[in-house]
């Protein structure tokens, strides 16, 4: 598995939101603080208390609360409040497994190995890419990458003003992430194009005509 996985367009994880995503079958919770910095976090989707999925939880300012018994975890992935024992100092050993996350080219990128270097920063992709949409495709990641022209070691493929990335939630399925530069095709037009691409991949149709639409320019 590659070190940095593009897991979501950023428009799906706005301030104060929580979203569960899967990476190669591993459950990951993405959440963004409802605070000035609005920092994005990616953690293992599992509460250290009784194993509840943290993606069912809620954001309180700069902490993520578990739905089950309300334990709250701060930005450093450490538990800092147990509502049943509000006066007790929470042991430092209670924490959630944190992954590294970067926001780049309109996407959230996660490294489950905790990588600190982010090579895609130097890839020369458009600086201010805007998120369009994440689309579920019932086909292997290899099929989708091949269809949209992402090199085996490349994080994204850019077709003019349109950027495409893929990750594997679970074997045999793919999430296609679509971004664009501001003066590129309309978001709505691209969203419908992504649906046609999905249907073509799933139906085993020829990809060339769908990809040619991108080169010809997508209308709204």
């Amino acid at each position, binding site marked *: 598995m590659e070190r940095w996985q593009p897991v979501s367009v950023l428009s*799906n994880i706005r301030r104060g939101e929580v*979203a569960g995503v*899967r990476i190669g079958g591993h459950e990951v919770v993405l959440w963004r603080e409802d605070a000035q910095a609005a920092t994005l976090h990616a953690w293992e989707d599992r509460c250290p208390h009784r194993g509840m999925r943290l993606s069912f939880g809620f954001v309180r300012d700069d902490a993520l609360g578990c739905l089950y018994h309300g334990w709250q975890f701060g930005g450093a992935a450490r538990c800092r409040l147990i509502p049943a024992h509000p006066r007790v100092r929470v042991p430092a050993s209670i924490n959630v497994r944190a992954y590294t996350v970067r926001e780049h080219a309109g996407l959230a990128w996660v490294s489950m190995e905790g990588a600190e270097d982010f090579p895609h920063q130097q890839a020369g992709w458009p600086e201010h890419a805007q998120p369009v949409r994440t689309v579920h495709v019932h086909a292997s990641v290899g099929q989708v990458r091949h269809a949209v022209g992402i090199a085996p070691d490349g994080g994204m493929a850019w077709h003019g003003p349109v950027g495409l990335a893929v990750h594997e939630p679970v074997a045999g399925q793919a*999430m296609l992430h679509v971004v664009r530069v501001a003066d590129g095709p309309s*978001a709505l037009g691209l969203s419908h194009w992504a*649906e046609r691409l999905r249907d073509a991949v799933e139906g085993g149709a020829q990809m060339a005509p769908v990809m040619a639409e991108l080169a010809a320019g997508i209308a709204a």
Partner: protein
Amino acid sequence: MTTGLTLYDWTPDVRCYAVRLGLSLMGVAYDTRAADMDLPTFQRPAGLRPGERPPVLVAGNVRITRPGTIMQFAARQPAVARAWLDPAHEWAILDWLDFGTVALDMLAAARDLAFGATLPVLPPMGALVAALRRMEDHMSARAMAGHDWFAAPAASIADVLPFVVFALSADLEVERDTCPALRRWAHRMRGLPGFVVMPGVPDYA
């Protein structure tokens, strides 16, 4: 004082939940007759006619059994806010209401198969998955146009049945991360005044 409306209700039934949710969101009061369809016929409430199964809404001479029709009936009550069947968006609302009714029937059938079996097996999910995908595509496009709800500027009866389909399809192993636009819309639904949960189904799906 009675409300003039009686709902024959079977708590674990998904169509009944859709009706309870819609009536609660619209602030419509009603009397409940619990009708446990697992009990023999003679132990069910007398007002339920042979062959009828909940939900059944009775208002005087009117008897309605289809969740979509019950939604329309409720939304046309004088005390209910017009937004639930906004005249300016009536056809879009009715169109999605009908879509939701069919999708809800698919959900109910899939759940009956999945939970009625001695071994937990997943039924063929093709039609239900296709309906969820259509909903996801629709709400993605709505979000891009700056809209929060299925068919009108505010929440309407078009949102109620699709919500139940999305929320309870989690029990059938439809993963939430495949439907990001529906996740964000469902979160808004849960924040509406009068929102009620399905007993036994946590408030997160």
